[in-house]
């Protein structure tokens, strides 16, 4: 990425001026804390870091994702300002006061000749750390009595940071999104291919944005896509089928290709290496198997039934179990079979938790042969949980009554039941539960024919 990139366009200019303004008098005390926010890849950290680099300001840049404990943050800051020896003086699990004490001690030895900057990238992670950390860092200047400014970079607005108890309000800067017309094209055109003219590349970028802008505004991602597909764009040029001025022809060539890219490589269904390889041997027209194409999972026989039972338990109201799974279930009352709130599709409401007992009861009635309650049947439930096909809810009462939810989709269950269903009854059950779920309840006649069919079976 070129250094001038961020200075190239007007949107940011006013923001930049203000940011640079703050940093322009390094020998004076600066504002204690600055909060910069904006969407991903709007150039926040790039701008700040390049200013730091260009003006040669003393700074400590820390990514908060890395700071799994506040100790690591202190460590990095101290070693950036005062060298690793100073950082080594920190005790084993340093507290905030340890940090402040050590900072004071060190800065009295080597007082700041110009403002020191602590840059905290992905500052939203700070909210998960010690609750006193953020307010303290915001007024660190006061605490350590040194010319230091904390710059927080985040994708989230400041309102989401403000602690309940209130704190020092930092200086806020917003990095606006890039506009499609000017800025993105300008920036993306910066890394044009050396062997082609910048104009060609700019027109390529225009085409690319025409396809991708609706789904993706992430500059980094767009650059990646631009690089990936450029060779395909240039293909007609290299073959001599088109000239650089033949934009329409080039567009016709690249457009479907980009559409395909949006469905595959952008979603990382196909890795970028595979995508490039496919471009190279395009003639074979091999269709790459995308990631989600391998959705089928081979499961042991009883696991399949357990999963089906779990699905039925999750999406059918417990009251209806007796009707669906018992051979002799009393008389069917036509009125008020389902309560009003149950008439909304359960698929819209999502899976409901069910106890183990209910799962096992449905399992025994669904599976066609007699199954002993062996340890391996139960261990299959826990292995389904580790495979995240089921999920366990409520961790308090695991011994007595664990509760589960089924976390697979209807399509998945249908695929599974298609492989195991030797008996028609199960398919009927599934279909029936579908009928109930999908608001077709009002067409009671079809429902009751289904029920009576079931009854006959």
């Amino acid at each position, binding site marked *: 990425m070129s250094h001038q990139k961020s200075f190239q366009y007007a949107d940011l200019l006013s923001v930049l001026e203000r940011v640079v303004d703050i940093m322009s008098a390094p020998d004076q005390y600066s504002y204690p804390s600055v909060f910069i926010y904006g969407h991903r890849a709007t150039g926040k950290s790039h701008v700040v870091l390049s200013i730091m680099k260009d003006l040669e300001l003393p700074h400590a840049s820390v990514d908060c994702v890395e700071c*799994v404990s506040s100790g690591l943050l202190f460590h990095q800051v101290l070693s950036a300002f005062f060298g690793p020896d100073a950082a080594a003086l920190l005790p084993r699990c340093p507290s905030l006061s340890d940090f402040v004490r050590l900072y004071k001690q060190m800065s009295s030895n080597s007082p700041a000749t110009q403002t020191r900057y602590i840059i905290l990238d992905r500052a939203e992670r700070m909210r998960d750390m010690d609750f006193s950390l953020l307010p303290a860092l915001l007024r660190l200047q006061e605490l350590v009595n040194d010319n230091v400014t904390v710059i927080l970079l985040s994708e989230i607005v400041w309102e989401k940071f403000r602690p309940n108890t209130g704190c020092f309000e930092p200086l806020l800067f917003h990095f606006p999104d890039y506009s499609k017309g000017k800025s993105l094209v300008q920036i993306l055109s910066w890394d044009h291919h050396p062997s082609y003219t910048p104009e060609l590349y700019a027109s390529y970028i225009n085409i690319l944005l025409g396809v991708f802008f609706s789904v993706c505004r992430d500059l980094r991602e767009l650059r990646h896509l631009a690089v990936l597909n450029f060779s395909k764009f240039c293909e007609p040029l290299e073959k001599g089928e088109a000239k650089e001025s033949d934009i329409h022809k080039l567009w016709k060539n690249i457009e479907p290709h980009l559409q395909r890219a949006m469905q595959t490589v952008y979603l990382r269904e196909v890795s970028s290496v595979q995508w490039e390889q496919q471009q190279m041997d395009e003639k074979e027209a091999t269709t790459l198997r995308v*990631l989600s194409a*391998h959705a089928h999972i081979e499961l042991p026989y009883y696991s399949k039934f357990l999963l089906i039972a779990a699905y039925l338990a999750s999406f059918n109201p417990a009251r209806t179990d007796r009707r669906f799974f018992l051979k002799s279930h009393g008389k069917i009352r036509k009125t008020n079979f389902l309560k009003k709130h149950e008439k909304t599709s359960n698929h819209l409401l999502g899976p409901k938790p069910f106890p183990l007992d209910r799962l096992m009861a449905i399992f025994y009635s669904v599976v066609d042969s007699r199954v002993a309650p062996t340890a*391996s049947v139960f261990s299959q439930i826990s292995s389904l949980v580790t495979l995240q096909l089921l999920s366990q809810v409520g961790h308090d009462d695991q011994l007595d009554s664990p509760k589960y939810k089924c976390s697979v989709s209807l399509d998945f269950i249908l695929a599974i039941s298609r492989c195991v269903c030797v008996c028609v009854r199960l398919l009927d059950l599934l279909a029936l539960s579908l009928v109930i779920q999908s608001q077709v309840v009002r067409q009671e006649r079809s429902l009751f024919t289904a029920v009576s069919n079931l009854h006959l079976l």
Partner: protein
Amino acid sequence: TTETLICSDSNLSLMILETASKKRKRHIGVGDDENGCDRFTICQKLWETVQMNTEVIQDQLNKKVLDSLAEFIKKPGLACSSDVWRQRGSEIPTAALMLGVNVPDHAMTFRSLCNLLQDSVTPFVVSVHAKECAAVKLLIQKVLEQLMGRGVSVDEEQEDDTALLQKTQCTISALCQWYKTKCTQVSPKRKENLAKNDLPVVVIFKDFEAFNSQVLQDFILICSRYTQELPFVFIFGIATSPSAIQHRLPHSVSSLLCIEVFHSLSCTQHLASVFDKLILNSQFPFKLSSRVIQVLVGIFLYHDFSVQNFVKGLQFSMLEHFNSQPLSVLCCQKHEALLSAKILSKQNVERIRHLPSFMRYVETQEPQEQVRLLTNDEHVKVTSFYSTIVHIRELHVSCIEKNLWETEEYDSALQLLRILAKDELVAALRSCAEILKSANTKRMQNVLQQLEDFLGRLEALQGVSSEDSSGNGVVSAKMEYQRTDLFQLQKTLLEKESRRTKRMNPFEVLRSQVIDFIDSLVREYLTPAEFQPLNEVCYYSSSGVLRQRLNVTPRTSIQAALTHPFYYLKNESLKTNTGTISSAAPDLCIVYKLHLECGRLINLYDWLEAYVTVMSAAEDQDTNSEECGKFDSLKHARFIQAVSEMEFLGFVKSTKQKTDHVARLTWGGC
């Protein structure tokens, strides 16, 4: 409900069972029987071969996918691509390794993967398990520990540096520093292999699904910051499907990865090859009866898909067989069997005589032979030995014709043979002949002779029929000219048709001959193993025991223990009629039986009353009723203890509905 917890690891319970059975085996082997030690050594030797074979099979089957993985990792890293224009952001090459849901089998695959990578690609291989990595901190710590710890063990001098590694320095940047120093030290030999490319750092996530997705996301984000300095490669061990990656990782994170999918072999194929190698192999003397195989395969298909567990089951049945069958000394290779047959003790010869299969064998012989068999030890030895050998050979033949356990299968196979085309038939016969060639008994040679005869005839026929077809060709060519007359054309066509059927006839006759021959062969030699004399020596057949041991039902056994304490305690005083409650039984049993009569909620006081009644009913007989009051507090305490044990076992739990009641959690039972 406790079962899920108790048996969350079926592997573990299996292991416990096995160690227990081993212990018992040693115990009996020494005390009970003089050849127990021999059997134990034979068993161990066999087990070693099984283990070796399974490992070899696994390696062979995984070779392809592992090699392609190694290729993938060896590829020049994307991040350090030399072409600046094409330099991609910071994608980490990631291999999604599809392993199937048979999680217990994965350990072996990962072990061989680690070994392969360390031998041929890079020394920096880390494998992490979800259980150890509940937080990013722990995950990073694990990675650092494995990488740097290993580095230290290579050269001793640096040990001091890394020993001082504080927890605070547990960051990837520390790893970066370490990596830089390490890379300069790494032997130049390895560097040449990798053609100026940096050695990648491979992180293997053994069970991707079990990882906390937040932990994974953070780790990937952190690592992607260092791709320029540290060439990371990830391997995700995925049990379900590749879409699991998309479910766990948001787009912002998965866009940092460059994912390629690798498929390992399916577990059913794996099992099939294990089956071929171990069970349908004549070199392997230990055999399983059809019922046992059904149990083992059933566990595999219905429950876990785990080849590892299948092999464990095989091991268990081996142990059980050598433990329970004294004659299993003869269950070994031919020459060893001959040796041990010679030194069979009188007791064991007697045992042979009592084997049902041997009795049947004796009955089919002539009277004087019968007498000799029953009196002369030596003769028994010789005959027994002979029949075992023959019998092993028999099994060999069964390898040719699939598994003949069910007659239906056999029938269908025969049907198939009947409609086979000629060249397929020839091919099938050839393969039969190939297998038979390795056999060396006279009878087998005879069969082979006949088969080859058939083959020759078929071959000859082939020559004839090919001439036929060329002849036909000539006819049809001629007909081209006579097309004018439609009627004539039809006639010639019909003629041709009839001629073809006629000409094909010899082949069909021959084919039916061949099939009859094979049928007779099969009927002669492939009698079910149960009817072979001395099958008990090689065949393990107690499927009931196996099912009981491998497919355990903890709840049933707990209930059995509580309702019939005699079953486990073997105390004569506990023997009761069903339905009555003996006061001699342990408190827990009494309390359990009493609670069976209650509804969903149990009144504790009523329960106590009933308990005291049962207890005092016994005491009334031998002590005065006056003393009863003295024991009340003791009884009360015993009752409370029993109830809390019930709660521990998961039969009752305290309820908030009524304070002096407990809720029943189980239904049914005896």
